[in-house]
């Protein structure tokens, strides 16, 4: 909707949002704004007038926005729409935000894109519940530029005294949440007073009209001077090189710069910024740009990692104090487990504590056991994985996220402060070093992590390899998913969080064994790339991801544990490859395809691979373990 205006076509339209309590006249204001700035397509008004007539309704300006039939029937605006208009100065895009309480999630969707807001208040009714709630959310979302439209002045006889009363009320509230409105404007949207034209009936008012006030808004500055934050979105191959792709959230990056990867801490220099069909390669790129970077060194990176400026990396923490806004019908309680997504990271979190729930009416906040739907609260989130977050106040784009439950977005959060882990743990240096152990064993300790579908042959290959290595005199141990679930992981099920925890514990056990010089063969389905990356992070050097691949059809036929048939009949929930996903490794160190051929071939290949990775040089060896080679 809204004609595309000609002026100033070379710059982005300035995004604004119109918020306020239901029935205070937001849609009318938008309709009038379009008309009075001459931004309506030809025929639109006539079409709506005739539709209104056909339905026996008196024409309302708000019909312009009620483009969907159901909205007209229900008399409320259902969802975010996008509408363009222009003033003499520039183009605007209105993200229409609805006022009904049920639709908070839509308002957040709209307002999160806005650089400025018009808060509409009914002159007769004054500040209402949604007025406060919307204003509070603007503040949470970082929309600081606000004008207040005191609407329906015609219903209070254009009384200046009434304006002053409403003004006192609203500026008082806004002041407490740190918003200073640019103007408080008496308007009558229905009659077009002080929208684009100065009112003739409110001559006592000397301030700006709505369009004049909007023209005074400044664009939110692009965070190009903040430290570099580039969440890794993906890694693409270009021939034999790898490019890390993602969008720069803040800062800038140039060819030759040193960058640091969280969580591994590895550093490298930017070798190139890759593009397609560009006349000149980019030497530098800044906040907002989507890039593909090659580095001068191959460092392991996956989606969810973060490239940063080495001199100013984000805090690493496992707990974070956040302000949450909550959408889910199920109230938020301490102990609840969810997924948190920020940048491209996707981590499991637990609500460690609900510190305070904010009453947006009174702005009181007090202790509470839970957060109701549409509520706002201060909460501590904890994760077993490290989090890399900035304070929202310092770097908004790197200090915010969404909360997910199953497949649903249940809330959003902004970071108040990362919490230092005070764990009172000091690592003790052991008196026997890893190289000493490895020398005695005659080989290095390492972890070979076999991932693949159930029935792909992981256990068979791991067991065969175990036997062969043991017979050759190696220190070797098998960690099998099923066996571990019998003891260490007996408390865990198969939901997403439990699978992650299962792998985390297994990875820590594998690491202890590898540090003591043992070769670990870990055979676990480990379907999620994120969990495997976490295992790699926990183990550190000497971690090898082995993808045991077989087509799911083949696995189904083999079905060594009878699980596929159980899954097919619905008796096993979330079974990988059937009712739960398997994310194929994109950067596996070794792929063993077992679709065709005897398992002996894969065992042979893995034994050779282990030997190459763990065998010590001639001078380092002792004993007769090298016999394998003969």
């Amino acid at each position, binding site marked *: 909707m809204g004609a595309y205006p*000609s002026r100033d076509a070379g710059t982005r339209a300035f995004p604004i949002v119109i918020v306020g309590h239901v029935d205070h006249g937001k849609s009318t204001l938008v309709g009038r704004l379009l008309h009075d700035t001459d931004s309506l397509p030809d025929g639109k008004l006539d079409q709506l007038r005739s539709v209104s007539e056909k339905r026996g309704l008196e024409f309302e300006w708000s019909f312009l926005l009620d483009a*969907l039939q159901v909205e007209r029937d229900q008399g409320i605006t259902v969802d975010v729409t996008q509408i363009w208009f222009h003033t003499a100065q520039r183009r605007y895009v209105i993200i229409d935000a609805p006022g009904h309480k049920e639709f908070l999630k839509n308002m957040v969707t709209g307002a999160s894109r806005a650089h400025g807001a018009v808060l509409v208040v009914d002159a007769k009714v004054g500040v209402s519940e949604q007025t406060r709630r919307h204003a509070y959310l603007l503040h949470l979302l970082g929309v600081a530029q606000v004008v207040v439209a005191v609407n329906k002045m015609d219903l209070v006889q254009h009384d200046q005294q009434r304006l002053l009363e409403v003004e006192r009320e609203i500026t008082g509230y806004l002041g407490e949440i740190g918003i200073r409105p640019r103007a408080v404007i008496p308007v009558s949207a229905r009659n077009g007073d002080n929208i684009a034209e100065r009112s003739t009936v409110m001559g006592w008012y000397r301030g700006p009209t709505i369009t004049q006030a909007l023209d005074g808004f400044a664009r939110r500055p692009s965070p190009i001077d903040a430290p570099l934050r580039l969440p890794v979105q993906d890694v693409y191959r270009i021939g034999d090189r790898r490019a890390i792709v993602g969008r720069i959230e803040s800062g800038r990056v140039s060819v030759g710069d040193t960058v640091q990867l969280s969580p591994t801490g590895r550093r490298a220099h930017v070798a190139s910024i890759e*593009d397609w069909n560009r006349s000149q390669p980019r030497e530098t790129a800044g906040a907002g740009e989507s890039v593909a970077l090659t580095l001068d060194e191959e460092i392991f990176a996956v989606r969810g990692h973060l490239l940063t400026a080495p001199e100013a990396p984000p805090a690493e923490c496992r707990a974070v104090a956040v302000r949450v806004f909550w959408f889910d019908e199920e109230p938020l309680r301490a102990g609840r487990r969810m997924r948190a997504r920020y940048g491209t990271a996707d981590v499991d979190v637990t609500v460690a504590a609900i510190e305070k729930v904010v009453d947006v009416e009174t702005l009181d906040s007090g202790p509470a056991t839970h957060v109701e739907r549409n509520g706002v609260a201060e909460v501590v989130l904890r994760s077993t994985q490290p989090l890399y977050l900035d304070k929202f106040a310092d770097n908004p784009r790197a200090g915010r*996220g969404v909360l*997910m439950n199953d497949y649903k977005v249940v809330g959003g959060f902004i970071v108040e402060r990362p919490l230092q882990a005070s764990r009172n743990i000091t690592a003790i240096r052991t008196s026997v070093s890893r190289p000493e152990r490895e020398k005695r064993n005659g080989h290095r300790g390492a972890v070979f992590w076999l991932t693949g579908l159930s029935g792909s042959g992981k256990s068979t290959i791991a067991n065969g390899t175990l036997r062969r290595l043991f017979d050759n005199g190696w220190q070797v141990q098998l960690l099998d998913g099923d066996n571990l679930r019998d003891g260490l992981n007996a408390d865990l099920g198969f939901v997403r969080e439990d699978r992650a925890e299962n792998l985390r514990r297994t990875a820590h056990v594998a690491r202890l064994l590898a540090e003591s010089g043992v070769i670990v063969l870990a055979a676990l389905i480990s379907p999620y790339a994120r969990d495997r990356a976490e295992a790699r992070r926990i183990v550190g050097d000497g971690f090898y991801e082995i993808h045991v691949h077989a087509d799911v059809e083949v696995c189904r036929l083999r079905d060594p544990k009878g699980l596929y048939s159980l899954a097919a009949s619905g008796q096993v929930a979330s079974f990988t490859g059937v009712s739960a996903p398997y994310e194929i490794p994109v950067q596996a160190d070794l792929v063993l395809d077992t679709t065709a051929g005897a398992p002996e071939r894969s065992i042979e290949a893995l034994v050779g691979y282990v030997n190459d990775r763990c065998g010590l040089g001639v001078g380092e060896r002792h004993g007769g373990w090298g016999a394998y080679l003969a």
Partner: protein
Amino acid sequence: MDDLDWLEAESIYILREAYGRIDHIAMLWSLGKDSNVMIWLAKKAFLGRVPFPVMHLDTGLEFPETYAFRDRYVREWGLELINDACPPIEEIDPSLPPNSRLAARKTAGLKQALAKYGFNGIIAGIRRDEQATRAKERVFSPRRNQGEWDFRDQPPEFWDLYNAEFPPGTHVRVHPLLHWTEVDIWRYIRRESIPVVPLYFAQGGKRYRSLGEIGITFPIDSNAGDIDAIVAELETIRTPERAGRAMDHDSEDAFERLRVAGYM
């Protein structure tokens, strides 16, 4: 960065999210200007190649110029094309108004392809400014597998933290051009020299502003014979872009009905 740079960067980000997070994905290629821009953006996002199939829902009723364009650029752009024929009109809901019924063949063609190839993600080049019901869309928009769109209960979407994971039995429509406008598209086509079907340029005082099937798509009065003239025309034009698409005008809610049932 100017406004086109911002739009381009955002679309590339969206395309990379879609490709990285959805396992079986395809892009709809209607052969119109918007979907050509989308392919161009995909080539930028994936450094020169389009790593998923492009799908033309073929009713057999496109203009000859449109087919010629398709056959040429499939080769030049190195695309993996799926162009199965859409189900015939006889299989389409007879209660729909005639023009909408013709358009609904595409919806049926899409459902057919979803079932046949098992895609759980479809990238489509719709824009919010095209049509009022499209203005309601999300960038990542979940659909039940029959394609229905529940516009009353759309998921929240904010801060570009898109949700790409939906329950089994759902597919996702991804809309990388959602925030572009018609004139943005043409200015970008001009900047990047992206080829388009020649029917967009005026001949004998008429040009197609929006391309669809023969019989339900009509040209507008125009003398805009090149991109500069089109951009100039759009900066003053006061009629909606889809005015020449008959199905939008069958009845007041025709297009909405199409979309709820799964139309793009």
